[in-house]
């Protein structure tokens, strides 16, 4: 066979990558059939591409199992584990509106913004006879946080025999720092509390997480923390279900 045309390596790459138009492809196909050296170069390049494709075909998979079914779990307020692979968050964010009822998110935003925060010692009195409480936590003051945990634990303990009683803590803004494994000095206590009481859920606001990450303060959540697209959405969902809202 004779050598017909000089084809650059870039041209051969474009050929095997499907980047050439029909005329160019036809020309190269023709040359390939009549030029053994060219045919070998094309074959080598194609083989190399296939090796690269295969070399990552079975890479180690991420630890987190996630399917759209997880979102149903979240919607039903059942506990599920979330690892640091917060890809789950995006799935939750997209799907969760399916399960949301009519409580207006803007109303929840106003509620979060305008409700006056109470001190932890007032939690019990504020709750009264309510059995379902969503607590917004938007501040983390390490020096006072032990007492916050104490009061929440006392509340859960007091209602330990009441199966209808449930507390959900929705952390956003700086309140998320309480859940940060890297910096929170209370991470272990919170984790223990969440493990001990099945009727306590702790929810992180994904929007605030993103904001903190953008400002150079990324949060690495503890395990057992649920993630919601936004605090307002989560509060709206709970308010729709008749939960009581308080803010710490």
């Amino acid at each position, binding site marked *: 066979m004779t050598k017909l045309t000089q084809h650059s*390596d*870039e041209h051969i*790459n*474009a050929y095997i*990558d*499907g*980047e050439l138009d029909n005329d160019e492809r036809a020309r190269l196909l023709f040359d390939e059939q009549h030029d053994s050296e060219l045919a070998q170069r094309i074959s*080598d*390049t194609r083989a*190399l*591409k296939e*090796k*690269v*494709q*295969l*070399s*990552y075909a079975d*890479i*180690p*998979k*991420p*630890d987190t199992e*996630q*399917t*759209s079914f997880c979102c149903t779990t979240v919607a039903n307020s059942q506990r599920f584990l979330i*690892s*640091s*692979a*917060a*890809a789950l*968050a*995006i*799935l939750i*964010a*997209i*799907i969760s*509106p*399916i399960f949301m009822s009519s409580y207006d998110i803007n109303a929840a935003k106003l509620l979060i913004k305008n409700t006056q925060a109470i001190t932890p010692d007032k939690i019990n009195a504020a709750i009264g006879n309510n059995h379902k409480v969503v607590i917004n936590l938007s501040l983390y003051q390490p020096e006072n946080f032990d007492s916050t945990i104490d009061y929440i634990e006392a509340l859960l303990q007091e209602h330990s025999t009441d199966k209808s009683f449930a507390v959900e803590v929705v952390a956003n803004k700086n309140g998320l720092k309480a859940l940060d494994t890297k910096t929170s000095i209370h991470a272990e206590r919170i984790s223990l509390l969440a493990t001990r009481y099945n009727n306590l859920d702790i929810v992180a606001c*994904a*929007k605030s*997480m*993103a904001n903190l*990450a953008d400002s150079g303060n*990324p949060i690495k959540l503890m395990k057992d923390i649920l993630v919601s*697209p936004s605090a307002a959405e989560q509060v709206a969902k709970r308010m729709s279900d008749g939960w009581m809202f308080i803010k710490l």
Partner: protein
Amino acid sequence: MLTARQRKLCKRLEAGRNRLYRMAYAWSHNNDITEEVVQETMIKALNSVDKVNNIKALDGWLFRILSNCFIDYCRKQREEIDIDDTVLIDRDTPESLHSQDEMLAAVRYAIASLPFKHRQVLTLIDIENFTYAEVAEIIDVPLGTIMSRLNRARQSLKQILDERPAEFENKTTLKIVQ
């Protein structure tokens, strides 16, 4: 209720996660880095998914976020290193010891030996089958640069594989060096 478009986006994002993971792993060869970068990518995607006007462009958009997150991560870790000059070198790891295919392990080693900018283009095209134009958009460089980087990547890869000593096989895990 979700719109039909949102459902489609959701499915695409769900399907995209493992692909992001594979790509981040091909760039870093490190599970921890991969998980962190993919997490960051998904959070950013979550917060701006409404800006995606064209579902067909979703893949490129996601991988562009991944690329930016990966580069940000590397810069944060090693401020003094120009990511474009960064190559990875091999180290023994349990993962490599489990490899059953010496050739593929060697290919990973060879890919890891490439400068990041070459490795990135090669993997986006060969693993994800992005077109040259799509890769140009993802990493924001001209089309000609993509072709040039791809060519250099393949030439280097071929050279490394041709010259590889036997002991390089089964060593694929990496450490960032300048």
